[in-house]
């Protein structure tokens, strides 16, 4: 894929997540990421959208999600904006994930933690006028280097 930037606006309808995953797969795969790394990014962007639908829009399916994809200077930047309820800081704070006994597992907020696991950098910010903005960045693989997983 030769394009470097994509702007996409879609409804906050979970039925559209499948299409978002297809777009992310094509975009990131076309930038030279390995298939395994590409699938990680697909998962993390899907989690960002799901988080906005569940928590910013509290399940409403007719609100806008704005996705921007850009690649420049060896960096891929994916930005998701919503116009929903501001996210509580504790919901988007990075936690340490480690194997635990099931009684201690906290699946709530797992999607946000997966985003931190996958991307080189994740910033949750208030939206420019309202809502939320999350900026996700990852370094593009050098030619022939085949960027591998970063969570090992």
């Amino acid at each position, binding site marked *: 894929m030769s394009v470097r930037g994509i702007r996409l606006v879609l409804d906050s309808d*979970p039925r559209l997540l499948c299409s978002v995953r297809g777009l992310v797969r094509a975009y990131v795969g076309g930038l030279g990421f390995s298939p395994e790394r590409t699938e990680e990014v697909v998962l993390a962007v*899907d*989690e960002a959208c799901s988080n906005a639908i569940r928590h910013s829009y509290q399940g409403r399916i007719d609100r806008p999600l704005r996705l921007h994809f850009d690649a420049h200077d060896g960096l891929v930047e994916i930005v998701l904006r919503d116009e929903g309820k501001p996210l509580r800081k504790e919901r988007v704070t990075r936690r340490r994930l480690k*194997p635990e006994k099931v009684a201690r*597992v906290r699946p709530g907020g797992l*999607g946000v933690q997966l985003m931190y696991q996958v991307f080189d950098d994740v910033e949750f910010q208030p939206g420019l006028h309202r809502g939320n903005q999350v900026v996700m960045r990852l370094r593009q693989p050098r030619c022939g280097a085949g960027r591998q997983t970063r*969570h090992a």
Partner: protein
Amino acid sequence: MPVEIDLSEADGKYVVRVRGEVDLYTSPQLRNAVTKGVPASGHTVAIDLSQVAYMDSSGVATLVEGLRAAAQAQRSFCLVAPSSPVMKVLQLSRLNSVFEIRETV
């Protein structure tokens, strides 16, 4: 891609076979099958994930919910032949060691 879920019960095992993509839209179907199965099962709840093409954290949360419910009901709970996308999200979540994983039902 929709999710398809088949339920069967034999020899004290309640088997949930999942095919397709498990995400925010489809995970409630999985949750319904898993939570219905725990009290109905004799001894074991087995979730066959060999045909799952995609799973997100809502799918993982559903599996954790099933595991907890099974533990409370003193039943065993296992994942059967998880596909690579399932193993990937479990590993990223650091939860792969929490589940019993079997090769076959």
